[in-house]
């Protein structure tokens, strides 16, 4: 009896602690207020910057991250080192990522480019910080594809390209989707690296998280409204991810069976 009570109490405290900030935001921002803030130019500008940079960053992550993950899913000498390199941005403090990006791409950086404090810088910062989430998941997803299925495909007359698109990609699909959803969420919330490398210029580099930070000094209600907006978007993303994961048993177009 005692033990059950303790477990219940622990669970109550943990869940309460996790839910409280979310509840607090919505306690202060009614749905009507939230909708009203959607016409506030600070909010709409930040929303446009956020969506644009996040979507472009995701495209880059998918286009470059997928082949990288596919290559890293094979075993070869030095693979461990390369995988660690890919994972490093995950454990770096965002401020270090930001300063590193400046040191590489800044006006006086290694490559002497002028992308710092432009929208391109936001995209680079977001991609740098969130791509490891996708690449790591994609490596694991490609690793789980049975090499015998790849061999079978080849003996059945399919070349490497057909084998990739018809066998490997569909079988790795649920892992790729999960990794991409995590990367998307991380991109949308990116703060530290962006503010150091891209600054917080409204309409150019000010994303939603940066707008929360900048509005919070001026108008707490606006900051809360943007916060509420981010909660809604993130929750929608999480629900979509869970739905995708559970509906992956459907057959088309990239079907996955529950058994193997």
């Amino acid at each position, binding site marked *: 009896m005692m033990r059950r009570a303790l477990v219940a109490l622990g669970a109550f405290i943990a869940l309460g602690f996790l839910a409280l900030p979310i509840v607090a935001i919505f306690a202060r921002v009614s749905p009507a207020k939230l909708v009203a803030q959607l016409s506030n130019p600070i909010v709409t500008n930040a929303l446009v910057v956020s969506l644009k940079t996040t979507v472009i960053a995701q495209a880059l992550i998918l286009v470059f991250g997928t082949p990288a993950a596919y290559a890293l899913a094979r075993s070869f000498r030095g693979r461990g080192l390369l995988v660690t390199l890919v994972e490093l941005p995950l454990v770096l403090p965002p401020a270090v990522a930001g300063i590193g990006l400046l040191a590489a791409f800044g006006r006086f950086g290694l490559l002497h480019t002028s992308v710092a404090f432009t929208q391109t810088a936001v995209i680079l910062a977001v991609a740098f910080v969130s791509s490891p989430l996708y690449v790591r998941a994609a490596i694991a997803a490609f690793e789980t594809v049975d090499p*015998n299925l790849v061999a*079978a495909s080849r*003996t059945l*007359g399919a070349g490497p390209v057909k084998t990739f698109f018809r066998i490997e990609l569909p*079988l790795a699909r649920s892992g790729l989707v999960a990794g991409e959803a995590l990367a998307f969420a991380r991109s949308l919330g990116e703060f530290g690296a962006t503010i150091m490398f891209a600054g917080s210029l409204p309409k150019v580099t000010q994303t939603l998280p940066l707008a929360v930070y900048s509005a919070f000094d001026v108008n707490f209600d606006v900051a809360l409204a943007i916060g509420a907006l981010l909660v809604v978007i993130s929750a929608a993303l999480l629900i979509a991810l869970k739905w995708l994961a559970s509906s992956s048993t459907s057959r088309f177009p990239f*079907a996955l*069976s529950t*058994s193997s």
Partner: protein
Amino acid sequence: MARLLLDFTLPLRAFDLELSLAVERTVALVGPSGAGKTSVLRVVAGLAQPSRGRVAFDGEDWTGLPPERRRVGFVFQDYALFPHLSVRANIAYAGAIDDLLERLDITPLADALPGELSGGERQRVALARALARKPDVLLLDEPLAALDAHTKSQVRSELSELLRTLGLPTLLVTHDYEDAASLADEVGVLVDGRLRQLASPAELVAQPADAFVASFTGANLLHGTARASEDLTEVRLEGGERVFSTDSGEGAVGVVVYPWEVSVARAHEDDSALNVLRGEIGSVVEIGNRVRVRIGPVTAEVTASSAARLDLARGGVAYATFKATGTRLVPL
């Protein structure tokens, strides 16, 4: 008939696999696990690159060609069916389905996913898919290993029938000598990457090249036709003799008799409880302190001292006797 020719060296982790082999009908490679059997199939399919030598089909050099440009039908040990594709899509992946669904009796399964099939059904789908490739050569990796005992005997007879109808050069590997003997015209014993002996199943039992082959190839397999006879099963062998078994069976069967279950006599002892086969002594081979004697269709194993006492020599006549309980029947 077209021939598959192999002559190559493939370095494996523990040893080099070295093989020189011509496959015209059905050749089975048997051997303990880790002997390199599957690697042979992978080399033929182009999935492994030998360090030396060549693979050729009907005069056409396949060495260096990628797998998709060799016309092989490879049935993997675990069947390697694509789990996300239906049975129909799995087969169509390799080529036109034509009558393959009917031929392999899998029409009702066409829309099922591989995960919903039994072992025997998966094997038929894997065979259908390999045949949709319109292969010149068939490669079967442990075709019966993944099946339970009951399914296995049925699948073995279906497979044997199918291989005969197809008439393709077929290379199959198995760790089970009995499966090899019942499916193949020639059996090769592969140990540590070397072919110890290549011969017909009967020759292999009668004249094993060494002690390993002798212990591995164990049993005689006599072909015949079975019918029930009182409480026993009567089998009329291909040579016309009749033997009885306590196992049940019907139609075309193989009678399995281990050489050490067979005793040898120079005169016919009248004992109705025994199966007696009279035959010419074909070969006498010493394996350590034992001697293997071929008498007509059956090989017996006797001690060296009783071989000396019986004065066994090629060309003489002897009687091989074994109990009905010492036999097993396998469907063919």
